[in-house]
């Protein structure tokens, strides 16, 4: 009987090598293994979250009818998880990223600046021919400092004031007669006295970001955390005015304290609040999240900070960008052009996700705007479209928006909960952002 046995160490080594290879293979499997670079056809992967995912899936259906050789795969990664995933992928030189990413206006500036080779330059693909079709304010933020286009607007969010028609009626206040924030606060006193409802709600301890009112008040005054040169304007006169107004309402007991995750409590009227500042997508989601409130919510243009001031504010938006490491660039770009650059694609996006588009041919289409029974026959889409055309100022988010937002949240908390002075707190916040980012103070 003669048989050869493989020595024990060799068997062990085989196991070890196999394990290591399996792990290596597992860690690589996230990147596309087909080895073909940039060929028409194949699978185009897209990352997005909740609502926008539904829009993209609807557009993908339409695209695939004409292009059966291409498969569009849209993944709902979740928000805010998507930012961590994109950041990690970008930091790893693009490993594991999808072909197309849905990126918020608050992040795209950072990605363009911190990872200059992460996003594909879309100008080289002819993005310029799409530009005239988009609202100028929305287009600008997708362009880098180098003048190249890195993102095409997907949704654009002008803001509006939503208000409870029933509460205003009960208090005998006419919302359309309110022409400034001082008048609004006066009206708030009457509403509080007659109905017990708060004028508006804020997440006073900033358990999630709580700067939505401040950003609207800044946008109404054509200013932001940074000026066009990227200098910090957080402690500017208009900014102090904005936070001062929030403090004034708060000191009068007109502001409800609602944590960031409790928006539904206001929408459904469980916490009675007379007004709610909301971006355009809110007009689409409110009928779904609070169907029982039909006819009780109205919508109007923003209330100007001062009499005669602007009543239009664009407070956000998202973009579709392509990762520079994509292996299906031509198919991905073809889909992006269909979804964002044709009426058919934009209509599908809107049908699926209900998000407000920045695409002018659709906004101007008579079929797009129609009276909405939920808002008592008002026409929210027309209202937003007119805001979008009125406003073209670009808000400079820069690559350091997150620092400014955090510093502001802390300042607002100090002012609302500790009765601190707005000017002092904003100065402190501005200085903190300056040391964190190395940016200059515009008023310094």
């Amino acid at each position, binding site marked *: 009987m003669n048989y050869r046995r493989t020595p024990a160490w060799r068997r062990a080594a085989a196991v070890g090598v196999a394990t290591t290879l399996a792990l290596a293979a597992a860690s690589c499997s996230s990147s596309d293994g087909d080895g073909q670079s940039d060929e028409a056809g194949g699978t185009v992967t897209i990352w997005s979250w909740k609502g926008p995912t539904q829009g993209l899936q609807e557009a993908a259906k339409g695209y695939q009818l004409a292009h059966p050789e291409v498969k569009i795969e849209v993944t709902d990664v979740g928000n805010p998880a998507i930012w961590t995933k994109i950041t990690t992928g970008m930091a790893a030189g693009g490993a594991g990223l999808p072909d197309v990413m849905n990126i918020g206006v608050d992040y795209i500036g950072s990605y363009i*600046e911190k990872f200059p080779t992460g996003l594909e330059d879309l100008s080289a693909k002819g993005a310029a021919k799409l530009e005239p079709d988009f609202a100028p304010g929305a287009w600008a933020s997708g362009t880098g400092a180098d003048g190249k286009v890195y993102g095409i607007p997907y949704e654009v969010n002008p803001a509006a004031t939503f208000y409870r028609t029933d509460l205003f009626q009960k208090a005998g206040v006419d919302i359309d007669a309110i022409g400034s924030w001082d008048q609004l606060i006066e009206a708030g006193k009457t509403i509080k006295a007659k109905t017990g409802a708060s004028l508006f709600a804020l997440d006073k301890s900033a358990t999630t970001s709580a700067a939505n009112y401040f950003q609207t008040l800044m946008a109404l005054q054509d200013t932001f955390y940074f000026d066009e040169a990227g200098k910090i304007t957080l402690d500017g006169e208009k900014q102090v005015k904005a936070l001062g107004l929030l403090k004034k309402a708060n000191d009068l007991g007109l502001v409800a304290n609602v944590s960031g*995750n409790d928006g539904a409590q206001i929408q459904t009227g469980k916490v009675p609040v007379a007004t709610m500042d909301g971006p355009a997508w809110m007009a689409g989601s409110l009928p779904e999240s609070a169907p029982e409130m039909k006819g009780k919510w109205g919508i109007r243009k923003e209330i100007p900070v001062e009499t005669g001031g602007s009543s239009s504010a664009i407070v956000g938006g998202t973009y579709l960008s392509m990762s520079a490491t994509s292996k299906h660039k031509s198919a991905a770009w073809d889909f992006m052009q269909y979804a964002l650059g044709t009426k058919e694609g934009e209509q599908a996006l809107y049908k699926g996700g209900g998000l407000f588009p920045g695409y002018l041919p659709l906004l101007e289409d008579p079929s797009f705007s129609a009276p909405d029974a939920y808002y008592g026959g008002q026409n929210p889409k027309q209202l937003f479209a007119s805001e979008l055309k009125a406003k073209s100022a670009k808000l400079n988010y820069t690559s350091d928006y997150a620092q400014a937002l955090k510093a502001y949240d802390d300042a607002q908390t100090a002012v609302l909960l500790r009765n601190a002075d707005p000017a002092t707190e904003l100065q402190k916040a501005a200085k903190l952002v300056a040391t964190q980012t190395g940016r200059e103070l515009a008023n310094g």
Partner: protein
Amino acid sequence: MAESTTTLARGAVKVRSARRGRLERRRARVALTFVAPIVVLFAVFKAYPFGYAFYLSLTKNKGGVTTFVGADNYSRLIHDPLFRKALSNTFQILLIQMPVQLVLALVIATALNSGLLWLRGVFRTAYFVPIVMGLVAYGVLFSSLLNPQYGAVNDLLGHIGIGPVPWLDDPFWAKVAIAIAMTWHYTGQTAVIYLAQMQSIPKELYEAASVDGAGAFRKFRAVTVPGLRPAIVLSVILSTIGALQLFDEPFVLTNGGPENATETIGLYLYRNGFQFFDFGYASAIGYGLTAIIVLISLIQLVVLERRER
């Protein structure tokens, strides 16, 4: 005759030792190949990130260009008021929450160990379950329980005439809320460690103590606690390291607020890395935290060793 026997014996030893040498080398090879995957994994997922993070902590990234800045990030760290604030918050929570948790765990373990308790299995599971609960579910649960306006906790307190307590809106109460959440999450685990150790304390010691006339409390103090010593040392060190890395609870409950009252070092590191994209500074914070943990662990070991003597 005697001589030749020794020579023979010597020869046999030589042969045997040569054989043993081959055997040992083979055994070493086997052992090495078995540990190889772990060594490779350690090198790729631990050693490399440690080294790379150290390199990152000496750099700054501006406009996608990484430049070497030496110790700049570290000197910024020393002068950063927010880092100091996070450090002080972490220590406040650590010094208040850890003793409470350990004492509570001791009480629970004693109860679970008692023969008088019914349904011991059910209780043991009930106390241990929180540790396996996911971060998000846990966060949602506590933020709705502690919601100042319509949370169940304030509702209950209202019935006995207390409150409303501003759980998440007040710097002091927010820290208390974090401490409560941590205690709920981790006490069961500590109790299970204590329980395991308790069951290894010889029964004879208790019997001897009874014979000497010791009561229940005296037995607890003179037999149980000394018997638990190794488990207590372990849990103190583990809880300290855990608290210094505290992230989950403030992340889901307070987002570090209000006004950074619950900002911890872990949260501040995450913020700088993944919200501000300042990887250089985030790495410096990581190394700062490592230095602090090493220092504290050394002090704890020295102190506990000295007591041992």
